[in-house]
C-alpha cells in the first residue's frame, strides 16, 4: 500500500513538474519574443516540438554510451526532483540535503556530456569543454552561497530550511543570505544555459555544441530533461531563498496542497522571469570572460555572505 501510494505521488509530481517545465520553456520563448517585438509561438509549442521529436520514424545512434548518457541524464534529473521539497508532497524531502541536491542538479550534465562526446563530433567536444569550464566558473559562487545557507541555518536539510523560513521570514530578508541569493541567481543564469552564459551551446557558432548530434527521440528525451531541470532548479531556488511554501490555512489537505503549489509556481515564475530578462538583454560572454566574471563579483558577493553568516 505504501509503495503504491508513493509511486502514485511520484508519478503525479513527475507529471506536474514536466508540464510546468514545458510551460516555462514556452514562457521563455514568448517573453523573449515580446522583448524582441515579435509575436512568438504559442505557450505549448515546446510540447508540440517534443512530441514531434519523439515520434520521428528514424533515429541514429553512435553506440551504447550515446543512448545510455541520455537515459542517465533524464533519470538523474528525476532523481534530483524527488529530493527537493515541493510543499508537503515531496517524496524524499527528509533526505533533501543541500549538498546532495547541489550535486544531483549537476549530474544530468555529465550524462549529456558522455553522450555528446561519444558521438565524436568536434563541436560536441568543444561544447563539452565550454560547459565544464562554465561549471568550474559558477561552482565558486555557488559553493559560497550554499556554505552561507548551511552556516546560517545550522542544518543542511532543505525542508528544515523551508520550515525555518515560515517562522523567521524569507532567507533574503537577512543580509548574508541576500548576498548569497544574488550570487546564486547569477549562477542560475548559467545553469539555465541562458545568455550571457550560453557559450556552451552557442547556437550559430558551434551548432548547439553538445546538442549538435542529437535528433529524434534522443532530442525529445533531452527536451523532457530540460523541462524537469528548469522546474527543479527554480523550485530549489524558491525553497532555499524565497521561503518555499507550506500552506496549512485551509481545512482540506488537497486545497492546502494546491495553494502551496500555486504559491511555489508564482515564486518559480518570478525566478524564471529574472533569468529571461537578463538573457534577453545581454550578449554572449566568451568562456574566459565568463570565468573572470564569476570569479570576481558573484564570488566576492557570495563569499561576503558566507563570511557574514559564519560570524
Amino acid at each position: 500500500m505504501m509503495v503504491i501510494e508513493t509511486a502514485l505521488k511520484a508519478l503525479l509530481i513527475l507529471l506536474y513538474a514536466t508540464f510546468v517545465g514545458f510551460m516555462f520553456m514556452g514562457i521563455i520563448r514568448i517573453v523573449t519574443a515580446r522583448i524582441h517585438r515579435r509575436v512568438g509561438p504559442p505557450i505549448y509549442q515546446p510540447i508540440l516540438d517534443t512530441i514531434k521529436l519523439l515520434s520521428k520514424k528514424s533515429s541514429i545512434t553512435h553506440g551504447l554510451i550515446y543512448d545510455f548518457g541520455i537515459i542517465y541524464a533524464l533519470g538523474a534529473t528525476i532523481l534530483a526532483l524527488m529530493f527537493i521539497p515541493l510543499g508537503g508532497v515531496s517524496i524524499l524531502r527528509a533526505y533533501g540535503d543541500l549538498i546532495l541536491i547541489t550535486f544531483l542538479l549537476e549530474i544530468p550534465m555529465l550524462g549529456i556530456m558522455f553522450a555528446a562526446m561519444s558521438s565524436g563530433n568536434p563541436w560536441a567536444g568543444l561544447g563539452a569543454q565550454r560547459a565544464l569550464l562554465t561549471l568550474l566558473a559558477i561552482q565558486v559562487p555557488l559553493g559560497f552561497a550554499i556554505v552561507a545557507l548551511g552556516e546560517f541555518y545550522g542544518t543542511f536539510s532543505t525542508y528544515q530550511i523551508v520550515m525555518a523560513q515560515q517562522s523567521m521570514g524569507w532567507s533574503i530578508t537577512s543580509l548574508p543570505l541576500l548576498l548569497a541569493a544574488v550570487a546564486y541567481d547569477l549562477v542560475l543564469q548559467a545553469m539555465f544555459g541562458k545568455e550571457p552564459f550560453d557559450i556552451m551551446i552557442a547556437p550559430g557558432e558551434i551548432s548547439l555544441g553538445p546538442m549538435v548530434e542529437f535528433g529524434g527521440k534522443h532530442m525529445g528525451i533531452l527536451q523532457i530533461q530540460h523541462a524537469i531541470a528548469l522546474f527543479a532548479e527554480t523550485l530549489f531556488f524558491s525553497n532555499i531563498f524565497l521561503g518555499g511554501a507550506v500552506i496549512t490555512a485551509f481545512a482540506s489537505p488537497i486545497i492546502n496542497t494546491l495553494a502551496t503549489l500555486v504559491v511555489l509556481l508564482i515564486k518559480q515564475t518570478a525566478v524564471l522571469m529574472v533569468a529571461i530578462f537578463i538573457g534577453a538583454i545581454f550578449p554572449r560572454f566568451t568562456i574566459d570572460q565568463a570565468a573572470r566574471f564569476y570569479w570576481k563579483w558573484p564570488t566576492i558577493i557570495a563569499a561576503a555572505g558566507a563570511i557574514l553568516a559564519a560570524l
Partner: protein
Amino acid sequence: MINELMIIIFAPLLAGVLAWIFDVKGIREGVAIIGAAVPLAYLIQAYQTLASQPSIQYSIVLSGFKFEFILYHLSWVFAMIAGVVGFAAVLGMVSTAKDSYEWLFALMSLTGVYGVFLADDLISFFIFWEIMTFASFMMVLKYNRKASLKYFLLSVLGAYAMLIAIGIIYAKVGAFDFTSVQRVFYQDAMRSVMGSDTLFSRNELLLIFGLFLTAFGVKAGTFPLHVWAPDAYSETNQSYTAMFSGVLSKAGVYGMLVIYILLGTRLMYEFGNIGAAPKFGYVIAFLGGITIIVGGLLAALQEDIRKLFAYSSISQIGYILVGIGVGTALSIEAAIYHAISHALFKGLFFLIVATIIHRTGKTQFKDMGGLAEKMPVTFAMAFVAILSLAGIPPLVGFASKWLIFEAVIHQNMPILGGMLFFGSAIGFVYLIRFTYAVWFGQRPTELDDTKDAPLPLAIAMGILALLNVVFGIAPGIVAGELNKIFGKEIIQGTIWELNLGFGRYNGLFITIWLVVGILIAAVIYFLGAKVRRVPVTDTYQAGNPVTMDYNLTIRRNFFLPLKETLAFWLRMSFDRLYQDIGSWVEDLAETLRHYIYNGNVQAYAWYLAAILIILALWGV
C-alpha cells in the same frame, strides 16, 4: 609461534625476496600474490579478535631497542586500505611487471607501509617509513633517474625533519613508545593549563609540529611539497602506482593523525581553537585546501594520462587534509572515509591507466582516442571510477566527500567550504578531459587492434570497482568501523544511511530512485523508433564530409581557455622555484670550486693559516 602482526608486516617482504631469488615467470607471480594475500587474510581474521579486545600488541627487543607494534581500530582501517589496494595492485602487476626487481621493491614497500601503520613507537615508525620510501624510490629509479632523484631529495628532507623531531622528543621524554610520548604531552598540556612550567616550551612544540608537518606533508604530497609526486607517480610501473598513490600517500595522512594522537592535546591547549576546530589544524586544513585547487587545476592542463592522475591524486589528498585539519571527531572520520574512498577509486584509476599503457604503449592524450569500443571492460571500470571520483551519488566518492563538506561547513568555515566546492568542479573538469581524449572520438588507425584488459588486471579492477559501488550504496558499513575508532556513534544511521543530525544521506534510496528514474527514461526511449548505428565519421560538420584521414577530435590543449585565464598564476611554479634553487646551489658550488677549492695546495695552506690567525685573534 610467530606473532600475527609480524606475519602481516613481513609476509610481503619475504614473498618479494623469494620472487627475486626464484626468478621464474609464473612462480614469482604466484609467490607475490600469496605474499599480498596473507596479510589481508590475517587482517580480516584480526577483525574478529578486535571485536572482543581493544587491541593486539606485540613487541620485540633488538640490541637494546624495544620495537612495539599495535593493531587497533585506527591502524586496522589503514592496514585494510593497504591490504585491499595492495592486493589489487599486485594482481595488476602480474600483467605489467617486467622482472623480479619490480616484485622485490613493490612488495618491500608494502611491508614498509604495513610497518608504519602498525608501529607503536617512533623508532619502528621511522624505520618502516624509510623502508617504504627506499623501496618506492627504487621503483621510480628503474624508470626515470631524474624523477627518482627529485623524489629522493624531498623524501630525505622529510626524513631528516622527522628524525630531528624524534630526537627532540626523545631527549626530553626519554622513551620512544607512543604511549609514553602521548602521556608526557598530555601532562604537559595539563601543566600549561595550570600555569606551571612545561617540559616542552611553546617554541619547541611549534618546531616539532613543523618538522612532523614537513615529514608527513612530503609523503602525502601537500602543497608546496607536492612537486615530486607528478613525476614519481607517472615514471614507474602504473600498476605499482595504484599502490604508490593509493596506499603510500596514506602513510602521510596517517602521520598527520599521529600528530593528533601524540601532540594533539598539547597543541590544542597551547594555541587554542577557532570555533570547535583547533587552530594548529587550520594550518593543515588550509594547506589541504590550496592543495585541492593547485592539484586540480594542474591536472586539468596535463597532456599525459599518468600526470593527469598524479595531479588528481594530489588534489584528492587535499580533501583528506582538510578533514583532518578541521579536527572535530566528525571531520576526522570524514577524512579517513575519504582516505578509504581515495584509495579505492585512485587505485582503480591507476590500474586503468596501467591497462591502457600496457595495451597501447601510449601515454600521451594526443595518441589516443576511441578506445571505448575496443576495451569495453576497461571502459566500464573507468565509468565507475569517474563517477566515484567526481562524487556522483551513490558511489563511495560521494559519501566521503559529502561527509567532508558537511563537517567543514558545519564548523562555520566559509573559505574552506568554497575551496571544497571548487575542488569538486575541477574534478569534473579533468575527468571529462580524460574521458574525451581516451575513450571517445576518432580512433588513430594504429590502435585498431587494441585488446581489452588481461585477466589479472581485469580481476584487480573488478575488486576495486565493486568496493566503490558497495561502500557507496551502503556507506554505513564504513561509518560503523570509523565510529569504533572514537568509541562512540559520531555518524549515526543504518548501514544504508549516514545521519549527522544536521544532514542525512541514504545511499539505498538514491540507488532505488536513480534506477526508477532511469527506468522511466528507458521506457520513453524504447517507445521511440528503432535506432540505426552510424560510424564516428557520420556527424554534422556543416556539410563537410568527415573522413578518417584527419583527426578532428580535440586531444591536445583541451582546456586552452582555462590555461589562458590562468596564465598569470601558471607563471608561478614551486617546481621551477626548487629547480632554480638547485641550479643556484650548483652555480655556487661551481664558483667555489673555481676560486676557493681550486686544487692548489698553497692556497689551502693559506686558508689554514688565515683561520688559525682568526682563531688566535678571537682568543681561542
